């Protein structure tokens, strides 16, 4: 296994200032590190990777790593990535996005990317809060929990991101936590290898905002909570819905093969060119 030093030497931009911007104990660095380990295990060429993000704490991930990196506008990482992937289908396109970025402002793009089944791997860093702006409630903040814009408790019901993307047609859905690092690496590896739109939802923690206002303790306490509530799909499948209340099912939740967008578009190009050549004077 690649060590942290090797990881830093091989994948980080050596002209970037470290330590990185994330707060002490923040899960984003952990997820980024394990994503890099997954990429390393797959022996992908750095030139062939495009790493795209939106806005928020998670949006700052690409700048640190030595790939083709694109830090877009809030919620729009997926349509940027869609254009890039269509233009360069040979690139492995990875998207890093937070819960607010992916499911609030970018919710429409997320469901349509799922529906299109374009070969992009989207890692959703779900920490239940808008961290960078100071801890406002997000579409995944649990009902009743507090945030700086719902100090008396959230009256909205949260999205279950994995169920959302499954319903929207994602052909690969994996979920894990930033505690379960080996599972995280494994799922990201499989998501990258999956031909089609893949989503990896990573339950993670924001000790600075969500953790503090909800009295969830520090990063260590929040990781322990992730360890407690996570239950692997293989076990969850044998359990009653009542037993699963308050649990988070982890593992590869959906994996199916359906025609991928870019490949289908290649067929369109072929058909259109045949049509053009078959028309009299059609070589215009």
């Amino acid at each position, binding site marked *: 296994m690649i*060590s*942290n*030093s090797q990881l830093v030497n091989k994948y980080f931009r050596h002209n970037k200032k*470290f*330590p990185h911007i994330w707060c002490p104990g923040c899960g*984003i660095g952990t997820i980024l*590190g394990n994503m890099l380990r997954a990429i390393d295990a797959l022996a992908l060429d750095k030139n062939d990777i495009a790493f795209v993000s939106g806005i928020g704490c998670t949006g700052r991930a690409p700048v640190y790593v030595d790939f083709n990196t694109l830090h877009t506008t809030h919620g729009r990482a997926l349509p940027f990535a869609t254009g890039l992937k269509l233009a360069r289908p040979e690139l492995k396109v990875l998207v890093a996005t937070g819960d607010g970025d992916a499911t609030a402002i970018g919710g429409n793009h997320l469901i349509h990317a799922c529906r299109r089944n374009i070969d992009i791997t989207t890692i959703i860093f779900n920490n239940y809060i808008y961290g960078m702006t100071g801890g406002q409630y997000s579409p995944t903040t649990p009902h009743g929990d507090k945030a700086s814009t719902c100090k008396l408790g959230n009256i909205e019901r949260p999205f279950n991101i994995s169920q959302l993307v499954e319903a929207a047609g994602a052909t690969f859905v994996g979920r894990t936590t930033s505690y379960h690092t080996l599972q995280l690496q494994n799922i990201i590896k499989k998501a990258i290898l999956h031909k089609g739109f893949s989503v990896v939802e990573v339950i993670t923690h924001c000790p600075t905002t969500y953790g503090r206002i909800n009295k969830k303790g520090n990063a*260590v306490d929040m990781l322990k909570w992730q360890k407690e509530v996570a239950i692997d799909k293989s076990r969850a499948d044998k359990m009653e819905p009542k037993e699963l209340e308050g649990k988070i099912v982890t593992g590869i939740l959906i994996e199916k093969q359906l025609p991928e967008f870019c490949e289908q578009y290649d067929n369109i190009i072929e058909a259109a060119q045949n049509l053009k050549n078959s028309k009299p004077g059609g070589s215009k």
Partner: protein
Amino acid sequence: MTQTSKTQNLPTPNNHPRITIFSDWCKSCGICVAFCPKEVLAMTADHEVLVKAPEKCIACHMCELRCPDFAINVEEHATGPDSQKGELQ
């Protein structure tokens, strides 16, 4: 960008993994200490991570994988004199 370390001059016998803390990058979140299954690591009163019992390390790498700051390194075998510096360019 340089990972630097206040080298902790602890005796690390060659048959034990070499643990390096890059203190300039460490934000003292305590994750490595809390989840080390063998209590190899400890947090000092000054909030610095201390390699307290290197001989107990089983090289499970959980500290490395969970460290949000890429600030801890576990090498199973010393690979040469360079690895003693705890400094990488």
